[in-house]
């Protein structure tokens, strides 16, 4: 098939480029990273336009969550590239004298990055920065669900970067399937197709990778809880409410893997919480959020209907305390709050990925720990609290990709923190130097001299040599010397 033939030819070209060694050169890597910076600067307008078209994203949101973080990450990579590429000395025991050892990072080779539609530039280019910085040749497969963005990305990468080393391949499921059949040195997958449920798509990718023993990073999703301790009776209540709203409706209308999925709050504070949320929804999004231009749209009719169906269950519908209106023509869903929908309803068993915010009430906020523990591990746990003991319990008793206290989403911008999941939310990590490492092999290198040799390394074997080995492995140098001088006898007869 034509697409297949082109695909194979394209990959052959990439492999040929890789084998010339050009992408390993620091100069090449820098040139690509700088090219990316120029791309982000010069194509900013096109990027804003495409995000508006595919997702209804406001340029400020687009800059805050995608372009801005990318610019930051490229600069960080440029600033640290030399350090990342350098080998690290490893200490050796004296027994190994004279030797030197180091760990040298090298690129893996030909890598595949499959990204998602909700942050189409961010989720394609963040891992891409790591792949390039690490010296690989790359195929980028953006999501077809954000077609304007996919197209802008393909054209821009073609125009600004080295086409013989980096390719963008556009298309849908059949293209992804063909790509997954190839042999890659690494696959980096960010998956959010909640229809097939991101975890299941992750399994498809990993199974395909298994045939070629390809290592993978899977950035999946899950239901990220936000535990809200009674902070809105303090002077910080505004900040708490704003951050919650920003972390749900303000980030791609809730279509974010690290967006707040649901809230856990104490029963006695819930009505206050709901009131405050309503007040600030109005301040942030106006009387009529649809007209506000500050809230994104649902990406497709399929996802729109999926979200609408979550509210079909009469008991779920009955739990709505704010919002709940839909506009199918404009793929707009109003910020919606629910209090205590049934835990077995789909809205509480599946990742929501949209602007519906259930609040689950608990007698005691500490019960949130058990609630979270009994569910699959999420990408992030959010907790708003000033109670240091509770925070420490949250860290040590739950497991998640990340824990963020007193804010939402912002951990995405922290270059020094690894970004990735655990359990159902995925494995592997990136951002900052972790991106570089995700696309590198850390090669162990040991250099020995011809000068010294331990004669007891070599057969024929006897007890004397066994005793020398015992001492050597204990790094008991005195023991080695004494045994060699015949002043220390072997403990056991090895012929027994």
């Amino acid at each position, binding site marked *: 098939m034509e697409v297949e033939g082109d695909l194979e030819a394209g990959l052959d070209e990439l492999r040929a480029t890789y084998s010339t060694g050009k992408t390993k050169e620091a100069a090449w890597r820098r040139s690509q990273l700088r090219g990316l910076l120029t791309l982000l600067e010069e194509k900013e307008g096109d990027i804003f336009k495409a995000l508006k078209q595919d997702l209804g994203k406001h340029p400020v949101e687009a800059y805050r969550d995608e372009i801005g973080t990318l610019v930051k990450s490229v600069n960080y990579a440029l600033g640290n590239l030399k350090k990342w590429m350098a080998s690290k000395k490893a200490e050796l025991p004296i027994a190994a004298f004279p030797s030197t050892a180091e760990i040298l990072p090298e690129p893996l080779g030909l890598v595949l990055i499959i990204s998602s539609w909700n942050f189409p530039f961010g989720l394609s280019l963040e891992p891409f920065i790591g792949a390039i910085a690490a010296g690989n040749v790359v195929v980028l497969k953006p999501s077809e669900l954000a077609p304007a963005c996919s197209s802008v990305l393909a054209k821009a990468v073609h125009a600004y970067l080295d086409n013989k080393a980096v390719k963008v391949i556009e298309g849908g499921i059949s293209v992804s399937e063909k790509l997954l059949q190839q042999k890659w040195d690494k696959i980096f997958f960010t998956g959010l197709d909640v229809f097939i449920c991101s975890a299941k798509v992750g399994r498809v990718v990993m199974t395909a990778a298994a045939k070629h023993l390809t290592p993978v990073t899977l950035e999946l999703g899950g239901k990220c809880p936000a535990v809200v301790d009674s902070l809105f009776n303090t002077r910080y209540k505004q900040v708490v409410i704003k951050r919650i709203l920003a972390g749900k409706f303000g980030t791609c209308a809730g279509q974010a893997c690290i967006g707040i999925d649901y809230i856990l709050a104490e029963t006695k504070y819930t009505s206050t919480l709901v009131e405050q949320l309503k007040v600030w929804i109005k301040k942030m999004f106006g009387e009529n959020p649809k007209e506000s231009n500050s809230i994104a749209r649902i990406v497709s009719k399929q996802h729109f209907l999926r979200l609408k169906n979550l509210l079909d269950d009469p008991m779920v519908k009955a739990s709505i305390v704010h919002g709940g209106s839909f506009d199918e023509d404009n793929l707009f869903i109003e910020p919606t709050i629910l209090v205590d929908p049934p835990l077995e309803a789909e809205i509480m068993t599946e990742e929501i990925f949209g602007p519906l915010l259930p609040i689950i009430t608990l007698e005691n906020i500490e019960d949130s720990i058990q609630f979270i523990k009994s569910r699959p591990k999420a990408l992030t746990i959010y907790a708003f609290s000033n109670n240091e003991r509770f925070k420490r319990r949250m860290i040590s008793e739950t497991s998640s990709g990340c824990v963020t*206290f007193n804010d939402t989403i912002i951990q995405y911008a922290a270059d020094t923190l690894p970004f990735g999941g655990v359990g159902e939310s995925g494995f592997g990590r990136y951002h900052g130097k972790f991106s570089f490492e995700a696309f590198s092999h850390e090669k162990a290198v*040991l250099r020995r001299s011809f000068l010294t040799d331990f004669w007891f390394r070599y057969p024929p074997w006897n007890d004397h040599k066994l005793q020398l080995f015992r001492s050597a492995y204990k790094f008991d140098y005195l023991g080695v010397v004494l045994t060699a001088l015949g002043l220390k006898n072997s403990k056991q007869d090895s012929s027994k």
Partner: protein
Amino acid sequence: MATEKKEVFNAEAGAAMMKELRSAFASGKTKTHQWRVTQLQSLLRLAEDHEKDIIAMMKASCKLALKELNHWMTSEKVKTSITTFPSSAEIVSEPLGVVLVISAWNYPFLLSLDPVIGAIAAGNAVVLKPSEIAATTSSLLAKYLGEYLDSSAIKVIEGAVPETSVLLEQKWDKIFYTGNGKVGRVVLAAAAKHLTPVVLELGGKSPVIVDSNINLQVATRRIIAGKWGGNNGQACVSPDYIITTKDYAPKLVDALKTELKNFYGDDQLNSKDLSRIVSSNHFARLTKLLDDDKVSGKIVHGGQRDESNLKIAPTILLDVPEDSLIMTEEIFGPLLPILTVDRVEDSYKIISSRSKPLAAYLFTNNKKLKEEFVRNVSAGGLVTNDTTLHVILAVHTLPFGGVGESGMGAYHGKFSFDAFSHKKAVLHRSFAGDAPARYPPYTPGKLRFLKALLNGSILGVICALFGWSKA
């Protein structure tokens, strides 16, 4: 009356075992410093009580883990930037949960216990599945670990394919597999069903490049020690084949013959200092490699075999064709083919045309050649002027693992602890210093502020705050 058959490890047994292990893990006990220390100390006592049976390296691993445990378990503070100011951040190591270690037959104690030590140090509940091919070791491990360790959280499951299949159907938080690529693919596919991360320690054909102008005697001894001295070639990092120049090959072959005689005497087939071949299956596999038409005439040393005792003498072959069977698959035995090239630099093409091995070795005094080798040859690990020492001596500071066909992930020392840990990011944010620019309704002024903030430009932030534009 016949003794009762050992309980079959079937799907029900597998599910019941998982339930017990998950419950043990959920109790939180394996996460405590105390539990980890107790288990590691018990392993150490096991090694000391049964010193004859346990390799000293395993003791060294235990001791290192005990010594470093506090340090490894402590969270790592990391710097934060203006983008998240004010905040503090740390990376917390936590256990993955319930993990599976499948080990191999060639270093059965070491390859079982080294990963288990890492898993315990990291606070997990563990199941060990030793290789059935090393049957005696398998029973010893089951017996000893059962006696010395907390069997509600650490278990040994013995058996072969059926039992391993039951194990692979369970949902693990990590699988650590040592073995070959074929089974490695099966393990990875099984892991995919549950999104289980894996470490695969596989093998490959580890090449040795031998340059001229070296201390030939020392080099030869080291090659022999790495090849035949290490389980008679049955090790994942054994020198598999040699590449040297046509001119140097005769000298190398002579040196090998001389030193082999020094180490193993005249009757090398029957030397007591050489391990035997592990099984008749592997014996048949190896003799088939020798009897291949393409290579049977290339034997320049050895070639003798003793089927009843599963012994094959150290055998050297010269100038075998690159497409012969012995050059296609990992040898894993006492056969050493030598390929010859015109110039030593031609070796790189041969190596790069093959799958990436677990190890690659170079003997040279030529600095340029050494640097080219380190830069261009991709393998799990490289050693210049020695063989296999990096596994033995640099135990805890170099990561041991493969790349490409030779595997994924690494272990030894702290890398073992990391292999079985999840590194959880924790960000502590303050309420002070809230930037209104983050929130809707969005304005051009907010855009300017965000640009400055994300670019780490303090001046830009100040300008934006005052509504000045940076022209």
